[in-house]
């Protein structure tokens, strides 16, 4: 296994977006996850990597949005699985890591909708339906996170404003 080259192309995976990559020259990044959750997955045999940036727990009663196909945990994870499979990955082989779900807006928002917490529950629940349990998690707390998936190695890293990248 090799680390990504220093000039690796950073592919930003924004809110409600999803990226699949087999390219060792790429790094998939979800910048500044607040209450959002980033889910990375990797099939070590097929060497396919994926990253999705979920905004909300549940699509029920909500309009779907073409520009943000992976906005919701339920439909977003289903889409991730189908896109991974279409790229040659096998779901039961996937190594899944998740980070985010923080409450970054402080006490003035604490009693409102607890979106971060609900996102965390929803993604675990949906992954379970696909027979998957995260191999690494960094959820909750009060700080935003940036999540990186390196297709070259299948490794996932998390960093915050205050702390450098650590492998999840």
């Amino acid at each position, binding site marked *: 296994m090799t680390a990504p080259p220093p000039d690796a192309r950073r592919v930003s995976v*924004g*809110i409600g977006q999803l990226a699949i990559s087999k390219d060792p020259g790429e790094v998939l990044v979800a*910048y*500044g*996850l*607040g*209450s*959002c959750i980033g889910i990375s997955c990797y099939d070590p045999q097929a060497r396919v990597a994926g990253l999705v940036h979920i*905004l*909300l727990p549940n699509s029920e009663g*909500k*309009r779907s*949005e073409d520009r943000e196909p992976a*906005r919701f945990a339920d439909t977003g994870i289903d889409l991730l699985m189908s896109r991974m499979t279409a790229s040659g990955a096998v779901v039961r082989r996937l190594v899944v890591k998740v980070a985010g779900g*923080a409450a*970054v*807006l*402080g*006490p*003035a*928002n604490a009693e*409102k*909708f607890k*979106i*971060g917490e609900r996102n965390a529950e929803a993604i675990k629940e949906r992954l379970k339906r696909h027979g998957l349990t995260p191999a690494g998690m960094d959820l909750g707390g009060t*700080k*935003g*996170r*940036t999540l990186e998936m390196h297709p070259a190695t299948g490794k996932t890293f998390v960093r*915050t*404003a205050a702390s450098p990248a650590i492998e999840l």
Partner: protein
Amino acid sequence: MHEQLISTLSTVAKDGAFRAGRGLSGLMGQEIAIHVPNVRIGTKADACDAVGGEETIVLGAYLSISGDITGHVMLLFPVPRALECVDLMCGQPPGTTQEPDELSDSAIGELGNIVGSAFINALADHLNLILHPSPPSVINDMAIALVESVYAEVLSQGSDVVMMDAIFEDHSGKTAGLLLVAPDPVSLERLQRVAA
């Protein structure tokens, strides 16, 4: 969609940003210029560009609005700029405060209070609403994490998002801050009625 509402909110946002900017320049003892605020459907990461891009660490304040309508107000500064504001507010030479501390948190909370309330009061006056800002939370994080969390709050309750953002600049053209206001979707209907 919401054409009438967007046009009314644009007027209100302009006055709100003007009052907020006046509050800011009063506190800082210097002239602050206000860009005509953006009122838009949805959100874009470019709201963060004003404070230096998505991953830039910002310091600021968040207030929630309650009363006739509910919503969110956030005032963000790039950290060095926030600390400069603190120095100006405390009557110290800029550069005195090097790191966020208890005193700077309290000054930033007060700044958020004054600037945020100025905007909320403009909204209340123009639309004849009773609105209460919450006490401010001091926030210190990556800009995009804060903006997306407000976006998530709003979208969790409906499918329509209207966000207003106003950029403050000092006399040298440097960004002095970003103000972001988003009513909750349930309040959009009410706003639409009073705007008509």
